[in-house]
């Protein structure tokens, strides 16, 4: 009968391409990593699942008027989702450690070196004819080294939307792999003596300082780097709600219902860019390779900056915490803590590492602003 052949021809078996099959397996791999291995599950579960949905043949999900495409269009093309996530991150972040020891901000600065060196590396691959990244794509890839998911997604959606899926997968995968990537680099660049340095107890930070910090950061951004103002502005807004003490209910919603809703929708929207036509490209291999380079260089940058600082400051810094400057909050700070205990079981570095760790978020948002300005102006 006619209808049976219609129905048969509409099955997935009849329509699936090899590429879609591969992508479904990759989606399942991401779910495995998220669920069994604990790789950034809050993002990789929705992204992985979205990636599978995006590769179901014969139905508009990540295309046309399908849900994932509508979410992509409404939330990522507009940047609304990453900006609301940044607001939630601000509401969840305690900048106390940064205020107690502002020089750790410099570690967060140095750890962004990996971003820019990687941009150069990506362009080098293009020049060498290995890959074909233009400057906007190279900039978006570099941001993986910022080790901050929403920043990477924000930049990629603006500068290289077709690479968004691969960049997000790389960013979250390497953030989850920080416990593997960082320790050998830290050990190679520091002596055991250095890793044993005990840092002075951080001072108490007043409530007023915490309230003023997001405003200070906002004003500095407005005056020096307006292109970073959407990201840093929303971070500061969330943090001001958290610290000001008079809008508890808004802060609570920003930290819970709102960020959770947006995380679910953002993850699915990112999944819409895991279609085989976007992801199964040689460029993806380049992105994965460059991403790990960016993380490694950022880690090295943070550690070396800490050693440099120790040449000039009185209160020595344990160079391990430089590695936390990449961000990957709070994973990198925990790795620093573990490395500290390994060198000296009584040395609890966690709170000290939180300083460069959250400064790294500011650092990569800064770098994002510069990328967008420069590529918009020169690229």
């Amino acid at each position: 009968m006619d209808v049976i052949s219609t129905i048969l021809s509409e099955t997935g078996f009849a329509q699936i391409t090899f590429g879609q099959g591969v992508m479904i397996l990759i989606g399942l791999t991401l779910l495995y990593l998220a669920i069994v291995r604990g790789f950034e599950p809050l993002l990789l579960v929705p992204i992985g699942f979205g990636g599978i949905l995006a590769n179901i043949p014969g139905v508009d999900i990540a295309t046309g008027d399908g849900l994932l495409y509508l979410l992509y269009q409404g939330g990522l093309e507009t940047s609304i989702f990453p900006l609301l996530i940044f607001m939630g991150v601000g509401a969840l972040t305690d900048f106390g450690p940064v205020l107690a020891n502002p020089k750790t901000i410099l570690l967060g600065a140095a750890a962004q070196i990996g971003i820019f060196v990687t941009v150069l590396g990506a362009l080098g691959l293009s020049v060498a004819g290995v890959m074909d990244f233009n400057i906007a794509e190279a900039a978006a890839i570099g941001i993986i080294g910022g080790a901050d998911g929403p920043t990477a997604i924000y930049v990629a959606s603006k500068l290289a939307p077709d690479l968004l899926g691969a960049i997000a997968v790389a960013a979250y995968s390497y953030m989850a792999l920080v416990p593997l990537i960082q320790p050998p680099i830290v050990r190679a660049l520091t002596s055991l003596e250095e890793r044993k340095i005990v840092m002075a107890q951080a001072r108490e930070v007043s409530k007023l300082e915490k309230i003023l910090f997001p405003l200070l950061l906002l004003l500095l951004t407005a005056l020096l780097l307006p292109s970073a103002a959407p990201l840093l502005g929303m971070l500061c807004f969330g943090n001001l709600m958290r610290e000001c003490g008079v809008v508890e209910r808004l802060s609570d919603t920003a930290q819970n219902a709102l960020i959770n809703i947006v995380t679910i929708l953002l993850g699915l929207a990112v999944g819409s860019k895991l279609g085989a036509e976007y992801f199964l490209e040689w460029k993806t291999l380049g992105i994965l390779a460059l991403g790990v380079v960016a993380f490694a260089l950022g880690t090295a940058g943070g550690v070396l900056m800490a050693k440099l600082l120790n040449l000039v400051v009185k209160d020595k810094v344990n160079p391990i915490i430089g590695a936390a400057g990449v961000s990957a909050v709070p994973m990198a700070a925990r790795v620093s803590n573990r490395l500290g205990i390994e060198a000296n079981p009584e040395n609890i570095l966690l709170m000290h590492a939180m300083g460069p760790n959250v400064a790294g978020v500011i650092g990569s948002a800064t770098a994002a602003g510069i990328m967008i300005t420069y590529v918009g102006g020169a690229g």
Partner: protein
Amino acid sequence: MQSGDELFFQGVELMLAGIGSVFVFLIMLVLATRTMSWALMRFGRAGEDDLPLAHVAAISAAVSAYRRSRRVEE
């Protein structure tokens, strides 16, 4: 279309300018943060002696000053 050399030079430019800008921005943030903390410790919390209705007056004064300054220019 640009040549490979141009592209690579752009990359070098972006790297240097980028690293420089991040450092300038974050060094300014270190300085601003230190200054704020120092000022708060030095001067403590400002007195609360202003009249509450004063803020409407203040906003009005600001708007008014601004409009007057415009008028001069126009």
